[in-house]
């Protein structure tokens, strides 16, 4: 996983609540067996017209947001399916951070596993950041995971909180399977105990 430390980039405003994972990447694009290549179909139902041409009204088809690295949205971002293809598609497009008042649980989890940072900030702050982002390419924002602050274009710093273990893994780009493998003895003894107590669980 790519580490996430400090990101300074263009933010795209998506002032909607309940942006579900079918919106982020429709199911018909989940047939790949790779982790990459989903970026071209990110928000496909909104980015493209039925004939395949770009929808000029969609934010990510407008300059400078074609190069957006941060997305700002409203409540319950990433609700719906468990598809990790949603953060894969964001990442493949170039988006490394989503800022919203809250996130659906599975999307929130999946994002951390892929170096896409979900930042929870109150709705009023999200509205403010959306206003900033409408200023376009001259209004880059900074997301600093090390210091846990978002820096507005005017220099104002807004603090956020990330779970310490997740922050550690993300700052260092660590694979959590390797981390869990350090506990293999505990897993072995758990299995032995369970085999004795609940034999019906083993086949």
């Amino acid at each position, binding site marked *: 996983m790519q580490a996430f430390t400090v990101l300074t980039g263009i933010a795209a405003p998506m*002032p*909607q*609540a*309940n942006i*579900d994972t*079918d*919106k982020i990447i*429709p*199911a*018909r694009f*989940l*047939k*790949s*067996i*790779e*982790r990459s290549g989903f970026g071209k179909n990110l928000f496909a*139902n909104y980015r493209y017209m*039925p004939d395949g041409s770009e929808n000029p009204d969609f934010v990510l088809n407008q300059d400078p947001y074609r190069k957006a690295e941060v997305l700002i949205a*409203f*409540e*319950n971002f990433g*609700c*719906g*399916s*468990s*598809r*990790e293809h949603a*953060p894969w598609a964001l990442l493949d497009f170039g988006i490394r951070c989503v800022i919203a008042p*809250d996130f*659906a*649980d*599975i999307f929130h*989890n*999946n994002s951390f*596993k*892929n170096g896409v940072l979900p930042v929870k900030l109150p709705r009023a702050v999200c509205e403010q950041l959306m206003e900033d982002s409408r200023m376009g390419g001259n209004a880059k924002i900074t997301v600093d995971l090390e210091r846990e602050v978002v820096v507005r274009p005017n220099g104002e710093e807004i603090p956020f909180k990330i*779970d*310490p*273990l997740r922050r550690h893994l993300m700052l260092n780009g660590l*694979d*959590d*399977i390797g*981390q*869990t*493998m350090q*506990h*293999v003895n*505990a*897993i072995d003894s*758990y*299995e032995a105990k*369970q085999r004795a107590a*609940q*034999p*019906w*669980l*083993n*086949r």
Partner: protein
Amino acid sequence: MSGQKPRTLFDKIWDAHVVETLPDGTALLYIDLHLTHEVTTPQAYAGLRAAGRGVRRPDLTLAVVDHNIATDASRYTGIVDPESRLQVETLEKNVVEFGVPYIPLLSERQGIVHVIGPELGRSLPGMTIVCGDSHTATHGAMGALAFGIGTSEVEHVLATQTLLQKPAKNMRVWVEGTLPVGCSAKDITLAVIGKIGTAGGTGHVIEYAGDAIRALDMAGRMTLCNMAIEGGARAGMVAPDEKTFEYVANTPDGPKGAALEAAIAYWKTLPSDEGAHFDKEVRLRAEDIAPQVTWGTSPEDVLPISASVPDPASAPNETRRAQMQRMLDYMGIEAGQKLVDLKVDVVFIGSCTNSRIEDMRAAAAIAKGRQVAPGVRALVVPGSGLVKKQAEAEGLDVVLREAGFEWREPSCSMCLGMNPDKLTPGQRCASTSNRNFEGRQGPGGRTHLVSPAMAAAAALAGHLADVREYQPKESV
């Protein structure tokens, strides 16, 4: 045990599966059953291969294909779509390479992963169950802790049989009273989501309780828990009881004899203790629930069938007004239109929400002796080969076919637009599935979520219809 703090069903299952607690409070949680399918596993196996890792407990893992599978005879001659075929073939190679038990497409046990787990007796009370699919919440109906995970977590479970998790909060949804005629578990689950909203359960595990829940059969409890995720919850659960034990006893692969007796003795200790703490409680009266139908593009946008399309002008704020207007535009409906006046093009009875034998019976009971309205395409897709076989033994396929319904082969079918069963742009569908998101059933498709009986009634009427006006002519 006197002196011990009263615990919830969730707390008990959680506590029994903590292998170790890390310094920051994250638990290493043991997973008893890992169900897998073709869509969310290829990258996980690729990750294992790249790191030189194997599957720790293939015996606690089960693979099946469901999402990409066609529901007509073409499935028996090879999958037509090359990407779908590659995904299925990739799973078939991976299960051989990693030694994972697999139910092939041609087995009568093949079906939707959330139908076959309980049906085969693999999903049991007290277990932790995961799958790379958000509707894993379904298995909570068994009195298990079951939740959906992403592909990185699938890889983590394959490699270690554990997950790194923070405990969820406890939420209890009480439904007391007697459900009115024409209503089912689907109407309860939709009414609950209408009440709490799509993010009402975020961070929580919902335990459904009350006599209206106890009165549901196991299939109904599965429908109920299936949609816990649509209320934002990590999982839904129903405490195991005699119905659960009897259900398990009749499964082909569940424990038998002395093993079953020992298991039941343990399962009886699982229900939430008197006085256990819930962070949130919600109460509904079953009598207040009427047959439900969604009108918008989020499952929380649900109303009784007797209602009319709501007016965005009545929204509490500008954001909601704009959202409602967008939904009305997408759905091709206008404020004030009666829901029963909305004509349907397609009716879909199936999906992990509503494709069990009880759902097939509910649809057939309404359809018997009647005819699908001209111009309506009505599909019935049993959730597994075993459901299909049972339905055919009961003659339900004949009843449904005679009424003009298509009787299809098991698959996720028209729930999510990944296989040939899809809506075309602008088509309106009464669907027993779980999500009415924009484009969910195919780009531009318009979904109204309903129960199987309501879907059957819509097929007969040619428009959304009140099932109470279509009660069975005779018993099937």
